[in-house]
């Protein structure tokens, strides 16, 4: 089955900036993204949370666009913008009516060239980030579970094991000098990819990219710390207190095989077999049939978006009258069945159809209904920065459609082992509350 083919033009400018254009004139909208190959995994030791704090600083002013100018110019052109920090990349993106393309490229180039921020900006954004951590993590039931709880339990290399949102002491210690040093080290044209998607002609996109970004000087190749982990030889467990929620919770994470290996493709479909919604085996068994759990979901979040150790993580909230051990035993029974009996041809066929449908949805879909082509942008950026091959967007589906039942079962046996996993128990400190009369 031949899927939709995405037309792509790509080129590397003299300064090392990769440029990818994906033209589509259906709507008069253009999405522009800049991805830098630096995420929270490789932020400096003693500066946990810095990559994310830095992302905020990128909105605080550049050489020719003082604080708020970037945001103001995008909004007043009829566009929206945002940024996000991930494990191995940080992205900045905006979708605008296509008549604002030059303006967006000028703005992105201006902040790639020079960041112009002061101590007051840093203090302001440090305060904003602390409230972000409170609203998303510290003041929410199951806040940050399991993505902030798991790393310290699962990993031994600081790169993978630290608090990505940042300890407040580390955020307080971050200085303006740190900001400029981080910028000079990683925010380089030769460590980035520029993506222009939507209502743009390829030659126009490439010449505008050259015009605005071409003279930004290349920098020394950034030093990347080694994110690899020492081999794991035992199951790892940890416990975290849950301050607000009343249900006991646990997360079980298994290390993924290497990106784009045969096992990795099989693991993706295995993940679907286990976590694919209400038909997934874990939800079906633990929630629908045995009725042990209230929630049981998870899987590999953003499988294309990692360039280092990553996990397939199941998250379970279970009924208080059932013990954690009994819940884990029920989970293990699902895994064991997969290892022993494998998967039938019919079930695998269903999984492949669903996978294909989800992949197309990612090619088309936006983010939150307002950022058209976010999914395509993300794929093209990751394939460019991690694989050097944006064209993978049109061929990567083949790898998933070739997976056999035997491969899937083999991956279950080989990777879903206890020595390859970590478990976090999140235990309520205050189980049960009284309802109003």
């Amino acid at each position, binding site marked *: 089955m031949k899927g939709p083919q995405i037309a792509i033009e790509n080129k590397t400018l003299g300064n090392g900036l990769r440029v990818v254009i994906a033209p589509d004139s*259906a709507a*008069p909208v253009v999405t522009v993204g800049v991805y830098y190959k630096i995420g929270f995994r490789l932020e400096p030791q003693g500066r946990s949370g810095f990559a994310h704090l830095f992302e905020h600083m990128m909105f605080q002013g550049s050489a*020719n*666009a003082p*604080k*708020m100018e970037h*945001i*103001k110019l995008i*909004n*007043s*052109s*009829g*566009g*929206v913008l945002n940024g996000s920090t991930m494990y191995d990349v940080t992205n900045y993106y905006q979708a*605008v*009516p*296509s*008549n604002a393309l*030059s303006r967006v490229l*000028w703005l992105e180039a201006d902040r790639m060239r020079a960041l112009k921020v002061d101590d007051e900006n840093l*203090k*302001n954004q*440090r*305060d*904003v*980030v*602390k*409230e*972000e951590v*409170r*609203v998303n993590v510290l003041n929410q*039931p199951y806040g940050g579970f399991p993505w902030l709880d798991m790393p310290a339990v699962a990993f031994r290399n600081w790169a993978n094991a630290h608090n990505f949102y940042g300890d407040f002491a580390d955020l307080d210690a971050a200085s303006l000098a740190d900001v400029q040093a981080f910028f000079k080290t990683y925010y380089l044209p030769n460590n980035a990819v520029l993506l222009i998607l*939507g209502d743009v002609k390829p030659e126009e996109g490439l010449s505008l990219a050259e015009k605005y970004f071409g003279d930004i000087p290349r920098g020394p190749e950034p030093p990347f710390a080694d994110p690899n982990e020492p081999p794991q030889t035992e199951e790892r467990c940890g416990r975290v207190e849950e301050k*607000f*929620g*009343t249900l006991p919770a646990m997360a079980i994470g298994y290390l993924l095989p290497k990106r784009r290996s045969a096992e990795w493709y099989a693991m993706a479909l295995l993940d679907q077999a286990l976590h694919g*919604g209400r*038909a997934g085996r874990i939800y079906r068994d633990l*929630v*629908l049939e045995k*009725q042990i759990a*209230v929630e049981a979901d998870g899987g590999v979040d953003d499988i294309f978006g990692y360039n280092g150790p990553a996990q397939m993580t199941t998250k379970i*909230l279970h009924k208080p009258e059932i013990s954690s051990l009994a819940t884990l035993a029920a989970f293990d029974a699902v895994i064991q069945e997969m290892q022993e009996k494998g998967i039938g041809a019919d079930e695998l*066929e269903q*999984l492949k*159809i669903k996978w*294909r449908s989800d992949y*197309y*949805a990612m*090619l*088309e*879909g*936006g983010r939150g*209904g*307002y*950022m*058209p082509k976010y999914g395509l942008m993300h794929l093209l950026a990751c394939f460019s920065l991690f694989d050097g091959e944006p064209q993978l967007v049109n061929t990567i589906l083949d790898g998933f459609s070739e997976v056999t039942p035997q491969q899937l079962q083999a991956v279950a046996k080989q990777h879903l082992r206890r020595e390859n996993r970590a478990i976090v128990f999140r235990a309520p400190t205050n189980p049960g*509350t009284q309802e*109003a*009369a």
Partner: protein
Amino acid sequence: MATPTTQPSSTVPALSAEREVNWPKRLKSKLANGLEIILVESHSIPRFHGELFFLTGNAAASGLAPGLAGMTATMVRTGTARRASRQIEEDLRRLGADLSTSAGQDTSSIAFAGLSEFAEPLLGLVNELAREASFPDAELERERRQKLEEVKLERTQPGFLAGERLRKVLFGEHPYAKISPSEKEVAAYQKEELKTVYRQSYTPENALLLLVGDFEPRAMLETVKRIFAPWSGKKPAVPQAAAPANPRGRRVYLVHVPGAVQTQILCGCHSITRKHPDWVKLGLTNSLYGGAFNSRLVMNIREAKGYTYSPRSAVNPLRQYGYFSVSAAVRHEVVAASLTEMFYEIDKLRSLPVPEGELADAQNYVSGLFSMGLATQDGLLSQIATVALNALPDDYLETYRDKVRGVTPDDLQSAAQKYFDSANMQIVVVGDRSKIETQAALFGDQEVFDAQGNRLS
């Protein structure tokens, strides 16, 4: 026309000529059984999105029990006369489809998306769920238990507690006052009540089917007719609830969460629905106040003062009544300071005309955002659903941007004066009482509740 009048520095590239938007063509039809159909082509990928709406939801069912339409929707996917729950889920996966069933205050819906090549079987399944849901006892007991845990969990979320209290304060005895059922109410749901809601609401006369995606509309219409024509059922009679009292004077409602490390602020007042002639003006006023990143509230309490990560304001149109709200999660020490700034920015909009340049920026933003919503299948579906569900004029999409461009500084000021009802805003704060009580009390008489809704003082 885009007319940016904020003058950026001379090096900023100007906007080039705006390209025309290709407005989506809609093929509308109505079956003899009353089912309304709207089909929209969008060929970007070989998929389609659909939603089967029913024009009644939790408000209409509130005479039986709160949240009953929501529970009915949950049950709809758990079994039909022909397929057991597990079969339904596997069939969906086989069709490469996602499906969800839900109910809000004013509508119930079955939303779905999948591969175009399997449109017919997916529509067949949707038809089956809409007509032949069987409400198996074991499924009901499981879903009830799930719902009970969900209802408990909600009470640990500051955002939920704030929203629940504000709605109660604004809508009193009206069904809109209740955003979620209590544990007792969920425990008391009767199967016959759920089946009554299903029988009355899930009828073609009460329904609208919307499909957006990669298909040929004429052929799709034939498919839809073949599948849905045999269905029958009348429009339900909906009891009219008495109009809610509009609360007078500022009052403060504190929801005490011991150990909270931040305070959730949510203020609100009655405003208008989408059908009101002032709707576009109010939308623009809201965008300029706190609806956009580049808005006065965000500039003030986030970018200048660093009180919060997430300030925003919103106009919330329910079918019968609308309300305006403003929210932020802030650190304890600045609760009074944040409220002061929220009211300062409201009162400033009420008192002083907005500069032309700032208005033009907001107009460009609102109209650009609107066009952006038409660029994806699900965005398009939601825009078209808004028009259809609110019975807005057929050319609503095509004329919306002109309406936005036509708003004047006077319009904005008068919208703020009418609908940003500063003197009568109801103020909800959710946090640790010991840290915020004296600050909050500065803004009005205060009532204190616990997270379960019990009045403490």
